[in-house]
């Protein structure tokens, strides 16, 4: 199981003293946060993709990820999320391939649709086509990373004739892809169809609903024959703020919570903590809450925490990372490993994916022979043939 942090790169005024950092400073801080993540023993740093203020998460995440890759050794670098709807799949294929080479295979992606309506038209797209865009664009990306001299045509971009991505993925194995969604069953289905991972940000929704999404993905993963439901690749987010003493954590975090982008000026910290996985308290409380995710999500592969938003000072964020690295993650690693069935896979790495590829175990989109999906297709085809024969 891998542990890490994810950031949305918001530039938010610190509500306690009215100070703001510049975009430049926030970008530099982000790199410092990533380096610190490696230093304290986290596995993953993930960045969002943004095109609008008040965010300075990169418009093209590989720019940031490659820079961090150059300054770290082991840290795995991910997006959270890559906008599959408004970014040309050809550029995603090329840019992330390149970053994958530079980072020696430390890159992975979480695909997301983006929920900011105005962004879509800036790239000639329409938010009402969010799902069809995610479906078509990812299908193209999937093929670009696996086929040479590709002929392709679709609804949302110009056709391709004999196109080959440069560079092709490292060791001919594309970066691992997760599909992220808060409440669209289509995206859980998409992840299952390809045998990719499913990531739920787990921040804005009651746990009972998130659990349903995860279960849907797991069952469909099994349906498509990529493994049993318990072997599906699940990632979860979470949001924490810690101090040794839980009252101190609540007192210090409250003004940031109350004024935070997205949920600020809405529910109380207490309500939000009850109804969502937000945990503000001691490291022990964070440990207990996070371990509880396994009760409804099953044994999973990736846990990312949001720690650097809402105008929290950089010093505070770095302290959060110290607490995560020293007190929380080591315990989580140990506890999550306990009673974890042997057949549940670890988080995919470039090495594990290369091995899988060489052993001919790559997932077959839509389900290969032996899967229920395959059998259903056969049955439907036979039925259609019968009907055809009757007509003839």
């Amino acid at each position, binding site marked *: 199981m891998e542990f890490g942090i994810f950031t949305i790169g918001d530039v938010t005024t610190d509500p306690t003293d009215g100070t703001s950092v510049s975009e430049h400073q926030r970008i530099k801080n982000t790199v410092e946060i990533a380096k610190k993540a490696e230093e304290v023993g986290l596995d993953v740093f993930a960045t969002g993709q943004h095109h609008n203020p008040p965010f300075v998460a990169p418009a093209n995440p590989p720019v940031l990820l490659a820079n961090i890759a150059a300054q770290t050794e082991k840290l795995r670098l991910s997006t959270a999320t890559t906008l599959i709807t408004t970014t040309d799949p050809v550029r995603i294929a090329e840019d992330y391939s390149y970053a994958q080479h530079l980072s020696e295979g430390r890159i992975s992606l979480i695909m997301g649709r983006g929920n900011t309506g105005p962004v879509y038209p800036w790239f000639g797209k329409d938010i009402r086509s969010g*799902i*069809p865009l995610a*479906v*078509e664009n990812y*299908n193209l990306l999937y093929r670009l990373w696996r086929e040479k001299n590709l002929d392709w045509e679709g*609804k949302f971009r110009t056709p391709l004739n004999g196109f080959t991505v440069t560079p092709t993925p490292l060791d001919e194995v594309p970066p691992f892809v997760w599909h992220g969604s808060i409440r669209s*069953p*289509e995206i*859980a*289905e*998409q992840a*299952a*169809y390809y045998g990719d991972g499913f990531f739920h940000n787990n921040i*804005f*929704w*009651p746990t009972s*609903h998130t659990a*349903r*999404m995860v*279960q*849907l993905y797991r*069952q*469909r993963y099994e*349906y498509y024959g990529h493994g049993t439901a318990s072997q599906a690749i699940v990632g979860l987010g979470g949001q924490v703020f810690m101090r040794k003493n839980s009252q101190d954590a609540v007192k210090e975090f409250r003004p940031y919570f109350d004024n935070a982008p*997205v*949920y600020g*000026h*809405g*529910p109380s910290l207490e*309500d*939000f903590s009850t*109804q*969502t996985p937000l945990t503000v308290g001691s490291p022990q409380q964070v440990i207990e809450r996070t371990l509880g995710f396994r009760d409804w999500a099953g044994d999973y592969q990736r846990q990312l925490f949001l720690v650097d938003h809402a105008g929290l000072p950089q010093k505070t964020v770095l302290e959060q990372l110290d607490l995560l690295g020293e007190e929380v993650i080591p315990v989580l690693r140990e506890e999550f490993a306990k009673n974890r069935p042997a057949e549940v896979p670890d988080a995919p790495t470039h090495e594990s994916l290369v091995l899988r590829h060489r052993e001919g175990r790559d997932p077959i989109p*839509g389900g290969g022979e032996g899967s229920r999906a395959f059998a259903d297709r056969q049955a439907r085809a036979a039925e259609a043939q019968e009907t055809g024969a009757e007509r003839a």
Partner: protein
Amino acid sequence: MSTRTITVLAVTTSLSEDSSTLKLSDRILAEAVSVGESTGVTVRTETINIRSLASALTDMALTGFRSEALEEAYSRVAAADAIVTVTPVYKVAPVGLHTLFWQLIDEKSLVGKAVLIASTGGTPRHSQAGETALRPMLSYLKGIVVPTTVFAATDDWGSIEGGRSLTARIRQAGEELIGLAGDLSGIAGASGPARADAAARADATATSTGEFGRATGRRAPSIDEEFDPERITPFAQLLEG
């Protein structure tokens, strides 16, 4: 001719403990029960006071996040056969809190449901607010709104004449609501004598009832259905566009 229970849910915005809006809501529910008794239908009534959901509604508007209480309220709407929506009118429009409740509910939440609009206001000049603001909104949600709306101004509570005409409107609206809810649930008895013509028409074109009924499954799927692996659209179909 099966007898069954019709559940009538009042979605009422009562801003004070004992408001005229709540009084109106209670009177309409009592009337629904009485219409049920005279037509051989058991009518069960429930009330949601939107006041108790005020913070949850603004939270959801700001964050998209549905509290458990709000989730439960929307489930109760889904479970009801008929809805009575009762709101005070401010400045010739239903109070914002009330419309917010209907603005944040899922699309098609009222498919197959009989709906009655009622409102209260200081003067008769507010009487058209339900017609102009709520009827289109509730129709948009696929509710089937009965023709009569009930509006009660201060005069209606105070004068003998006003009181009588309010009682008559409540009676009329109650009959329409229970009659329609009965038709939609396939309870012939619910149509009663007052609705004999309408019932006859409904019988003659039995399929038209089905079209609005929940049997056709046009209601928006519940969250359980949405994430049911057996019900979701297979990805191959999504890929074909």
